[in-house]
């Protein structure tokens, strides 16, 4: 059980490009933490700094209370799984898994015992004599995982380990990872760009953008209470609808042919922003559709495309100003392309953001932790 702590960690390259800026994350013992964000957001760099593959430009990283800034990777008691697996092609799977133990000078019998035990846990006993080139992507992934596990490290580091797998295998392996973590409870740092992986795997999720941590919170809190527009837009499929507009007195939002009145409790927190430009954020499943005749006061939009998804369907709409919205509705909704529909916003679930890509969420209670 290991406690990992990142304090004011920064990474900058020559030319003063800041790849990672002021990252503070306190990872609890046995926690599964997921760093998520678009490519280039600094999540991999952060992980590599923990691994010791990148120098730390400023700040400190502690593993179990010990500053590891200047320790080489092998002395940090970590193991890492790479996106391309990075298995040694000239060694058999057994040799791949045994390599680190061999370098540590463990006895042959001890190595064989450990490798076999680990291979058994993840079901690759039958692959041990093969070379990585003879394995499928999923099998290689397992061997890479086994190579990390066999060392029984204090911290597991995963760098997008599932992104080279096909969709089905990815879901299976994801579940497997979760099971293994539940069993061994090793502190884990997991980097992905896939929000679904982040949501399903993480005890807590760290959303990063442009080198900065945007929010650190359990998955559902991130989903329901995003601190800013970036976090809100990054998580959720289809992504949240954002509408540029103005907040008028009385809590009436208006913009792009869309208007809605915000509930009293939200309004209380918006005081100073009344009369300014804001961005409305509504998730696709928080908009209900109805025939315009039934709701003459509601804003309307035209249905462009319908994507049936089985139990639900996504409708792509255009408002009167030509602005596009996505709505997720039950599959039972009887609508067809070209029709006009009334938009019924669940205003209690709507968010208002300050303008800008990273505009803060104005509708959150002040107690919410906004890190950035």
């Amino acid at each position: 059980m290991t406690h990992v702590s990142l304090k004011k960690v920064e990474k900058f390259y020559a030319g003063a490009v800041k790849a990672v800026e002021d990252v503070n994350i306190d990872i609890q013992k046995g926690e599964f933490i997921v760093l998520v964000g678009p490519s280039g957001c600094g999540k991999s760099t952060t992980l590599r700094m923990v691994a010791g593959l990148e120098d730390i430009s400023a700040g400190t990283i502690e593993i179990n209370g010990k500053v590891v800034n200047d320790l080489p990777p092998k002395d940090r008691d970590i193991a890492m799984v790479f996106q391309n697996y990075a298995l040694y092609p000239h060694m058999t799977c057994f040799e791949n898994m045994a390599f680190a133990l061999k370098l540590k000078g463990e006895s042959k019998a001890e190595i064989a015992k450990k490798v076999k035990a680990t291979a058994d846990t993840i079901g690759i006993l039958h692959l041990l004599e093969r070379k990585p080139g003879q394995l499928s992507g999923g099998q290689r992934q397992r061997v890479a995982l086994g190579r990390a596990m066999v060392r029984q490290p204090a911290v597991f580091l995963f760098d997008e380990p599932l992104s080279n797998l096909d969709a089905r295998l990815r879901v299976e392996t994801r579940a497997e990872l979760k099971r293994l973590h539940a069993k061994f409870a090793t502190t884990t740092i997991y980097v992905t760009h896939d929000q679904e992986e982040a949501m399903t795997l993480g005890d807590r999720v760290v959303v990063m953008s442009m080198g900065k941590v945007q929010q650190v919170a359990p998955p559902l809190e991130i989903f329901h209470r995003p601190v800013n527009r970036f976090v809100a837009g990054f998580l959720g499929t289809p992504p949240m609808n954002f509408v540029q507009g103005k907040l008028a007195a009385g809590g009436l939002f208006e913009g792009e042919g869309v208007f809605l009145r915000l509930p009293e409790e939200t309004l209380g927190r918006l005081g100073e922003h009344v009369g300014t430009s804001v961005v409305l954020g509504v998730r696709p499943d928080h908009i209900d559709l109805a025939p315009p005749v039934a709701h003459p006061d509601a804003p309307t939009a035209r249905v462009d495309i319908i994507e049936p998804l089985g139990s639900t369907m996504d409708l792509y709409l255009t408002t009167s100003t030509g602005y596009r919205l996505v709505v997720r509705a039950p599959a039972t909704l009887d609508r067809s392309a070209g029709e006009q529909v009334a938009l019924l916003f669940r205003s209690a679930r709507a968010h208002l953001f300050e303008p800008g890509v990273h505009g803060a969420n104005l509708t959150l209670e002040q107690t919410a932790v906004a890190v950035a």
Partner: protein
Amino acid sequence: MSANPLNRSRTLVHLPLVLLALAFLFPLIWLVLTSLQPREQVGKIPPEWLPRRHFIEENGHEIFVTPPEAVGSDKVLVLVEEGIDRGNRVLIPAAAFSDGRAALQRQEADQLVEERVRAKLVQSVPKNYVFVKEWHLSKYDKRPARGLYVTPESVKVRVEPVAGNYGESIRSLTAGEDDKALGLGELVARTSFPWTERSSPGHTITFITYLSNTMLVALLSVIGTTLSSAWVAYGLSRVVWKGREALFGMTLATMMIPFPVLMVPLYSVFRALGWVGTLMPLWVPSFFGSAFSIFLLRQFFLTLPKELSEAARIDGCSEFQIFWRVILPLAKPALSVVALFQFLFVYNDFLGPLIFLTEPDTFTMALGLQQYQSQEGGSEWHLLMAASCMLSAPVIALFFFTQRTFIQGISTTGMKG
């Protein structure tokens, strides 16, 4: 084969390719055929391709002879019985022999003297007769070679390779003693290996001496180049440090300096070190890497994902262990290309040995072959070609065995073959 238009167009493409390949093979074919020809056939104009041997039958035995020479006019072969030429067989015009006397012409001082001497007719040689000489494979064969005047019909020709050229070429490289044929056992016994102490003057230097010199130099410089270049290339491709690119550029720049420019300075350096006349100038430099090999290996190392090194580092490898245990085993194809190129270079190198080697017992094969060209006045082309064939054979065989690795290595490094 079939009427399939695709097949036909493929044939059309392959036809010129095959023809072109034959054009490139031409020197090799010539080499092999020449090495199997009798000495007299080499360099004939117009050239003859297939090795042909002339022979006559005598008492039911075949006797190989030299190509027939026309006699031209009616002549007689006489045995002179008096005067200076007593006991000699002489061929004179038929008209110059009558009544048991032959008119012999002889150059004496500045004038031509003719005297009539007693002589016995041995054989009359009509003008359609030809002259042939018994054919000896080896110039060391000191048995008297008979000259014969025979009818053209009795000289038969057969296409038959002279495989004996090969043995002869080895034998004739055995210099040092008076032109004396050596048996193979003797040959081996007299071999002086370069790592043994220098033999006394007048010892025998053999084909095997040359061969072992070549192999020793090739082996050492292959090991040297492969190891040192891989080490340098690793530093230039998989370790990040300041000035790396500049140093790589400089390394490449050394490739642009032609060898003739370096010859004199190198000679001075090696002379100052006291290495001239030893094999050291030929292999020691290879332990300091070669720009071409460094370049080739660097390109290969760049193709290996950096995660491999990182995984190894996390597994606990030092930089050297990453190089030795992860990168080198993966670079086998590229390493074999480097090794093969280096081997070929050393094996074929003539200029280096020519400059730095002074003692025949340190000569390499390439230099040793030179002897065929100056020995005994004329060049022994057939023997030179036979030795060249033997010299090329191991390399060609090596290429066939390593072809796959070789091509793989070249294609993965992005080098053209």
